[in-house]
């Protein structure tokens, strides 16, 4: 039985898919993080976000995070799904779901996974504004 699910897709991400993968009769709780596209950044109105990935490497890095989370925390299963392509305000770029017998481990693993993903996984977002666009984090 596989305890990890990592996915990069240009389809709409579904919270239910991640939930269904991690849910298990042995688990007392599921912690989830769902990223959503905000309508502003640094007080500037965002119109859409465009996500691109170095896909094979991004999947490897996501798998490393999932495997490490299983080692570091007393969890049962973890799913990490990331979207690529154009996302509108309110759309979901990322979902992380973690199940465990006891909730503390699920929370810790979920937060660990999203924090690490944002540091290591080769995915980039370009923010589009009314008057231009910018690659997030790229400029000094």
């Amino acid at each position, binding site marked *: 039985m596989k305890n990890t699910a990592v996915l990069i897709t240009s389809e709409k991400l579904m919270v239910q898919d991640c939930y269904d993968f991690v849910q298990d009769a042995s688990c007392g709780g599921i912690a989830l993080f769902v*990223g959503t596209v905000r309508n502003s950044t640094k007080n500037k109105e965002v119109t859409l976000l465009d*996500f*691109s*990935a*170095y896909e*094979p*490497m*991004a999947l*490897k890095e996501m798998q490393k995070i999932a495997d490490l989370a299983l080692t570091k925390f007393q969890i049962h299963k973890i799913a990490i799904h*990331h979207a690529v392509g154009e996302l509108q305000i309110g759309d979901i*770029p*990322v979902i992380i779901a973690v199940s465990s017998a006891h909730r503390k481990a699920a929370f810790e693993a979920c937060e660990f996974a*999203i924090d690490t*993903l*944002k*540091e*290591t*996984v*080769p*995915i*980039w*977002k*370009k923010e589009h504004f009314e008057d231009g666009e910018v*690659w*997030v*984090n*790229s*400029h*000094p």
Partner: protein
Amino acid sequence: MKIQLLFFGIATDLVGENSIFYELKSDETVLALKKDLLKNYSKLKNIEDFAIAVNEEYAVDNLVLKENDVVAIIPPVSGG
């Protein structure tokens, strides 16, 4: 020797390429390649910083590159 270079995110925009073949002296390190790239593609200096991945794994500066390595220029990531 020849390696393949991949550009992502802002690096694609700055260099104007997604992927190119690149001629390199044998036994060059990642650090030497970085310096080389900053000379040949000076616009890369506009990026806050960038990492190098070799064959889909992050590489340390003193890693020695080999013929046919796939080397990716990884600008600061911003997924999630």
